[in-house]
């Protein structure tokens, strides 16, 4: 399959109070035609910054894309100027955001906002654009679309607003859809409706999607491949089936053990100890070292690369020869900090 998007060694750093924050630090992935890649991680992992970087929507300063390539349909869009980027955004690559409540303009009707996209990017007349907008609203399952089109965002429920956002993002038949936590602000039953809609649209238009989420359940049900991020790095990258069958990185395993499941009963959950360190306090070595149950001396000294293991890629010394050589030199952050 053809790669729609290739991201190579993307680095987006932030600079505040004289400190450097490596929010996205050498991230590489690709998205193929018709495929959904899920990027999963907790707050501060850099997943949203990755998404914003793809559209060059990083506020600058304090942020800056300092290195890397974003190859979209054969061209590095990091070389694009503002005018070229404006042509790309909302047209070839479009985005839906987490908060449908705050990402629609409250003083325009939803119709106005969809029509604007069509008039700007497709040079349609207002009349044609309005017709197309109604079709789009019908496509995303809004009942009475020809009436709803003249309503303002506050007249719609959260799920309806997210449907409008999706309609807007689909207006120009994008090649790539970036969905940043599209269902996080929604109720479960509405979330199920929206995920179902996104899955249907993907099949219908053979669209490629980058799905950003903190919810492994959503990834499991909607993505084809998954990249797990921790503190600006991809720590595991795999096909969804392979990943959920046998996750390799201690962080991935920890995440999965942290979620209560409907199918198994445990007396206590098995959480990852500690918390995500502040990104200005990164130590050398593996970024997960402070919370890892398998940390060794080498993990504190040197950061592992993302290496192929089985049918996945994983960033962990455990899956290398060097780890076995060092067996026994266990590193315990908790006893160290207590001592």
């Amino acid at each position, binding site marked *: 399959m053809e790669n729609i998007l290739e991201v190579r060694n993307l680095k987006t750093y932030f600079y505040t109070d004289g400190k450097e924050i490596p929010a996205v630090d050498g991230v590489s992935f690709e998205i193929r035609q018709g495929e959904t890649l899920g990027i999963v991680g907790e707050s501060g992992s850099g997943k949203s910054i990755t998404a914003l970087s793809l559209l060059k929507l990083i506020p600058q300063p304090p942020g800056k894309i300092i290195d890397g390539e974003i190859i979209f349909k054969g061209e590095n869009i990091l070389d694009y100027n503002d005018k070229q980027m404006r042509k790309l955004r909302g047209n070839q690559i479009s985005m839906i955001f987490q908060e449908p409540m705050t990402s629609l303009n409250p003083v325009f009707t939803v119709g106005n906002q969809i029509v604007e996209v069509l008039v700007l990017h497709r040079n349609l007349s207002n009349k044609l654009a309005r017709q197309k907008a109604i079709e789009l609203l019908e496509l995303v399952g809004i009942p009475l679309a020809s009436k709803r089109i003249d309503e303002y965002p506050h007249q719609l429920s959260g799920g309806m607003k997210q449907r409008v956002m999706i309609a807007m993002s689909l207006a120009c038949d994008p090649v790539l859809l970036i969905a940043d936590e599209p269902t996080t602000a929604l109720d*479960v039953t509405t979330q199920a409706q929206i995920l179902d809609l996104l899955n249907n649209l993907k099949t219908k238009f053979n669209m490629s999607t980058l799905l950003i989420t903190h*919810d492994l*359940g*959503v990834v*499991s049900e909607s993505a084809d491949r998954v990249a797990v991020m921790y503190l600006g790095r991809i720590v595991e990258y795999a096909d969804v089936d392979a990943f959920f069958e046998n996750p390799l990185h201690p962080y991935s395993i920890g995440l999965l053990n942290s*979620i209560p*499941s409907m199918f198994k009963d445990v007396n206590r959950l*098995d959480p990852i100890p500690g918390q*995500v360190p502040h990104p200005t306090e990164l130590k050398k070595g593996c970024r997960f070292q402070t919370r890892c149950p398998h940390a060794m001396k080498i993990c504190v000294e040197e950061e592992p690369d993302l290496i192929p293991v089985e049918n996945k890629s994983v960033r962990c010394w455990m899956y290398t020869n060097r780890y076995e050589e060092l067996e026994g030199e266990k590193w315990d952050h908790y006893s160290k900090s207590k001592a």
Partner: protein
Amino acid sequence: MGPLLQVEGLKKWFSIKDSKLFRGEKHFVKAVDLIDFSIEKGETLSLVGESGCGKSTTGRAVLRLIEGTEGKVVLDGVNLYSLKSSELKKLRKDMQIVFQDPYASLNPRLKVRQIIEEPMTIHTNLTKKERTDKVKQIMTDVGLNIMYLDRYPHQFSGGQRQRIGIARALAVEPKLIIMDEPVSALDVSVQAQVLNLIQDLQEKYGLTYLFITHNLSVVKHISDRVAVMYLGKIVEIGNKASFFETPLHPYSQALISAIPETNRTLKRERILLKGDIPSPVDPPEGCRFHTRCPFVMDICKILEPPLTLLKEDHYAACHLYTEGIGDIGKL
């Protein structure tokens, strides 16, 4: 001895003031509309539902943090709604609440020691020294390092702040703690830590929880009994095992099927509900769920089904069963 908490006919209607808009007619948001439930000592009852179903209002009305319109709330033999506010204040130490947002629910100007000490200053006769000792002991209990006594809330992460909120609730040794979405604002890995803490504390101190959440996987993990709310009504209530094995109300079934699962080998059939939750202002006649119910019948549009005992310790409000159409054995 009866249950620790007994709620009977609790109702909270908010009146909508703007009479011009509705041509002088009085309208109400029926946030909580005649609900009954009880919690035994040492038990966790989860109140689950989607936004706008009235679960948080219920939590607050139980504590009289907002005044219920009607109803009885009996805590350990005393009807809170028969008390004067001065009498109620004395009982406040028996019932505490942990809020959803650990960023908004701690006073940013107080140090951790002051936050945890304050309830003791108000409700107990402990000396300064005793209070400080107790603060340290509670901090240890909830997994906070006592080196942080003099830090301010902003110096802590979300998970640690929620621990402070829990410590504050524990300070006066309450009989009942209302947990209002205590882990919803937290990251997955931290969420698991706090859930474990909540369970550990319950075991250690024999605490009773009313656990309010929208997350059914969390409910399954933490509760003894489950109550599902929809538009101000409890539509199903029962013990956890029976509820998750055979959810009876179509809404509960849809809720359970909607949870995204990471277990890929067990594929379930998803029930997709049509439309959105109707407005709680003048909710639908008859069964409030009838506008979205996949099994809707004529009677559902006219008559509101009562909460009926259908299995051992398992009630549901649905005409499917009272009309003999729904087969409980088959589900």
